[in-house]
């Protein structure tokens, strides 16, 4: 039954405790992720939307194995996440972050950055790196260059190339385009769609931009205060949202109200 789904989470919980500080000796527990259950279809795109602090990034980090969780189950290819070694998991899931300026090491050349991610003694590292750079639309001489020589959009392409270098099947992209200009946003989103078609990747895309999510996702999960408050097909969520918070989010999307022919 799970076979259609490459990834599935069942009632995942994660609490954060604030420690005692100089200013206060109370500890407060916050449910950062509260009973989150999501499913990602093989070759599909799942969008997760919500405002800052809604727990979307925490959930993503848990799925990518970058953060522990308190309870619940996560299955990747029918196998419990806890049974994966770190190395195995990195070949299944890779993550792309919002800020391509801080996610690349400024002291490493692009070739080294990608080779480091592959972490094998494979002699063909350079070939692999050139190949993935090619996949994201960058030329081979990119390898000798350093991050500061690239624009935001190009850096995000390099981050995607690094994720591809491991042959991962699932890409979790946390606000991958929100720091980019609109025209560059469109280029990067198209790259995601091309790679999905050509390599059969599955994506979890996290964004606060519901327009963007609805344009690419099969399903959307709306999060608020750590809970998934609405979850379903993206057309349904956009056209017939049931939860009042979802309705509020959708009504806040800026629209060009002049009946532009481009809408």
């Amino acid at each position, binding site marked *: 039954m799970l076979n259609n789904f490459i990834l599935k989470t069942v009632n995942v919980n994660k609490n954060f405790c604030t420690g005692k500080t100089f200013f206060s000796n109370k500890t407060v527990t916050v449910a950062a992720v509260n009973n989150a259950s999501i499913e990602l279809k093989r070759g599909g795109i799942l969008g997760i939307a919500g*405002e800052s602090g809604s727990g979307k990034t925490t959930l993503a980090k848990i799925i990518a194995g970058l953060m522990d969780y308190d309870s619940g189950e996560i299955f990747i290819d029918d196998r419990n996440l806890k049974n994966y070694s770190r190395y195995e998991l990195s070949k299944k899931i890779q993550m792309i972050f919002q800020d391509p300026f801080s996610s690349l090491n400024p002291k490493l050349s692009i070739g080294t950055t990608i080779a480091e991610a592959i972490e094998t003694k494979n002699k063909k590292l350079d070939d692999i790196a050139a190949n993935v750079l090619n996949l994201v639309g960058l030329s081979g001489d990119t390898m000798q260059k350093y991050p500061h020589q690239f*624009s935001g*959009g190009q850096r995000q392409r390099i981050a995607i190339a690094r994720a591809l270098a491991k042959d991962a099947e699932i890409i979790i992209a946390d606000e991958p385009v929100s720091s980019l200009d609109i025209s560059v946003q469109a280029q990067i989103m198209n790259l995601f769609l091309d790679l999905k078609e050509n390599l059969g990747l599955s994506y979890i895309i996290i964004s606060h931009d519901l327009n963007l999510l609805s344009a690419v996702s099969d399903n959307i999960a709306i999060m608020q205060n750590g809970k998934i408050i609405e979850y379903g097909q993206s057309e349904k969520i956009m056209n017939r949202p049931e939860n009042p918070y979802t309705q509020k989010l959708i009504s*806040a*999307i*800026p*629209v060009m109200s*002049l009946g532009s022919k*481009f809408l």
Partner: protein
Amino acid sequence: MDKILSIENLFVEYTVGKKIIPAVRNVSLTLNKADSLTIVGESGCGKSTLGLSILNLLPKEARIIDGKIIFHEQDILRLGEKELQKIRGGKIGIVFQDPLSSLNPVIKISQQLRETLKIHQRDFSDDKIEKLLETVQLSEPKIIKNYYPHQLSGGMRQRIMLAMAIATKPEILIADEPTTALDVTIQKEILELIKKLMREFNLTVIFITHNFGIISDICNKIAVMYAGEIVEEGGTSEIIKNPRHPYTKALLSAIPKTHKVKRFNTIPGNVPDLSAMPDGCKFHPRCPRKIEKCAKEEPQLKQKENRLLRCFNP
């Protein structure tokens, strides 16, 4: 109509190492009383540089090469620091994208507002400060005035910035990406607040943004910038309904729609390197409508029907 601000043939350059980067080239704009103008464009198009020039707030690497900025028949660029201080934050207010870095983290909100009022010789009593906080729709002004910036949310901080900007009843408000760092629901609230302030104070507003979506609601004029130049300028509804410049068209069509798409519309290529700009029209390497002339000759900004347009083949 009452002309309040006019920018005439402004040129601004940055010097980075040995490179000279022309950030704003030959920009002219006119604002009438109660106008609201949006300057739209992608990063590096010179829109923020233009905004900062109006208050002569440019960083030291930047230099205004030529042009005038006339505010009530005075050229701002030729004023001394003392006279400029009266305009800056007095007659013209400004709010920036990131409210946290624009507020002093170790000074209470009330004190920061008081400073602004004091410098411009206004009433700086507690009553006045509470009233200002009320104007920007912060509930419990008596409590909030004693807070430090870190105790407030992003939306509340932007409200404080707006309170500071309007404290001296300015004539012009410059808002540089005021909602970009905020969540959509908060963005909507802040835009509503700016609209309310525009009505109440009869403000003339210059909005700087890359987000077309928020403009149509708030502004009556748009100027689209590309590589330091204005490429299209006119009324908001005319431009959004019927964009003529290929760049404006491409920008508008790249905005995600609320329905599923096979692929997004993109603009091929990248924004040109400002220190090595192409000959002819700066947009021609990326333009779907380029003709032979575009690579050789630079188009001028000309009146075409109801707008200004910089294009040989619209």
